[in-house]
């Protein structure tokens, strides 16, 4: 775990040398996706810890580290590495995910659909709660890491992302379907997010704490049962206010205290996020490769 963190630190330093910081406006959500893609050639590196607490299970910190690259204006690719640490237990890497998002309509419309396709290879100890599907619940996180890690899941995940911008507000809905490649039925989930910058017009002066740099909103997410049993009954449901602060340096800080709404949910899920965008990363890599030819 520590060596993985060291590697991530060295990688971030190397990226800092390779590319200039970018200054994009990041979405405030942790679970919900909107239709905004990564700018072509830019790389965003982010880490997103989540602290989960519930009665009867050990408190844990799940984390996903993500590398998001803008392949084209309409295509964004992401690679995730998941890890977790459970109090009174152990810390471990729990797997990886590879995801691609495709904008289905190139222009800006009232409702903008995006197709999300993901392959994930994680073990049963994964506690990132990046999405909640099927009958996922706190009981699944009660198992000791030593046993849970032996269970391997290779899953294919799809999302239909519908997102709109209305008078400064972003409204996004995600419909999620997950299928284990080796068997089992489709599990379903959803995420809904609404957010808005605290000021719609920018101020004339350079500033760090001005309202336009803050984006606040709310997320709702949870499971919807599975194929043949689509229901809310027995599922986990969460409500989570979100706040993002886009610093002029290109770094975005995010926080979201989430609250479980059903007996199966964790009582609290507190999420933090730090991301930094590197502009022109793709061009720099291409230049480097050309020079070495």
């Amino acid at each position: 775990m520590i060596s993985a963190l060291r590697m991530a630190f060295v990688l971030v330093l190397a990226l800092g040398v390779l590319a200039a910081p970018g200054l994009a406006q990041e979405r405030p959500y942790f679970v919900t996706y909107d239709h905004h893609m990564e700018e072509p050639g830019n790389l965003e590196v982010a880490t997103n810890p989540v602290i989960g607490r519930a009665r009867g299970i050990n408190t844990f910190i799940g984390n996903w580290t993500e590398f998001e690259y803008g392949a084209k204006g309409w295509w964004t690719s992401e690679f995730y590495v998941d890890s977790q640490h459970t109090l009174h237990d152990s810390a471990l890497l729990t797997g990886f995910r590879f995801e691609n998002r495709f904008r289905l309509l190139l222009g800006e419309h009232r409702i903008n659909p995006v197709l999300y396709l993901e392959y994930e290879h994680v073990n049963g100890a994964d506690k990132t709660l990046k999405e909640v599907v099927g009958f996922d619940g706190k009981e699944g996180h009660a198992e000791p890491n030593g046993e849970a890690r032996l269970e391997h899941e290779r899953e294919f995940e799809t999302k239909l992302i519908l997102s709109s911008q209305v008078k400064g507000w972003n409204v996004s809905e995600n419909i999620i379907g997950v299928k284990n490649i080796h068997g089992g039925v489709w599990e379903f989930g959803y995420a809904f997010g609404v957010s808005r910058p605290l000021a719609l017009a920018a101020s004339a002066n350079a500033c760090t704490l001005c309202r336009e740099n803050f984006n606040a909103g709310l997320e709702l997410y949870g499971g919807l049962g599975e194929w043949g049993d689509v229901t809310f009954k027995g599922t986990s449901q969460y409500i989570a206010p979100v706040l993002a602060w886009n610093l002029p340096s290109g770094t975005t800080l995010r926080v979201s205290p989430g609250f479980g709404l059903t007996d199966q949910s964790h009582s609290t899920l507190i999420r933090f996020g730090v991301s930094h965008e590197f502009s022109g990363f793709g061009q720099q890599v291409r230049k480097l490769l050309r020079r070495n030819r």
Partner: protein
Amino acid sequence: MKRHPIHIILTIVLLVTAVYAKTGAERPVENPFQNDGTARAAGQKLFARHCAECHGQAADGTERAPSLRAFVRSAAPSALHTFIKNGNLRSGMPSWSRLPDPQLWQLVTYLQTLEP
């Protein structure tokens, strides 16, 4: 008859979608910040933040994207606003619809003061 909760949720989602889809059609065609000095300064700041990495600090182009000086002054403000908002995803110009409309108009105000 007891309604299934999924039906209720789907109905709410459809209603919300219909309401905001309708309101999304409204868009001013006049630049509300035309010749506004403060908006120009804000637009310059937004340009430095979001656009200069590709188009250059002086908007005269880089190897990633072309100069803007040749056409922004003569372009209709609403056309410029629409272009920035939609981008040209095929050619690599990203959509900036994530910026609220007032910020897009501030950018237009700044761009239209650039000398060719």
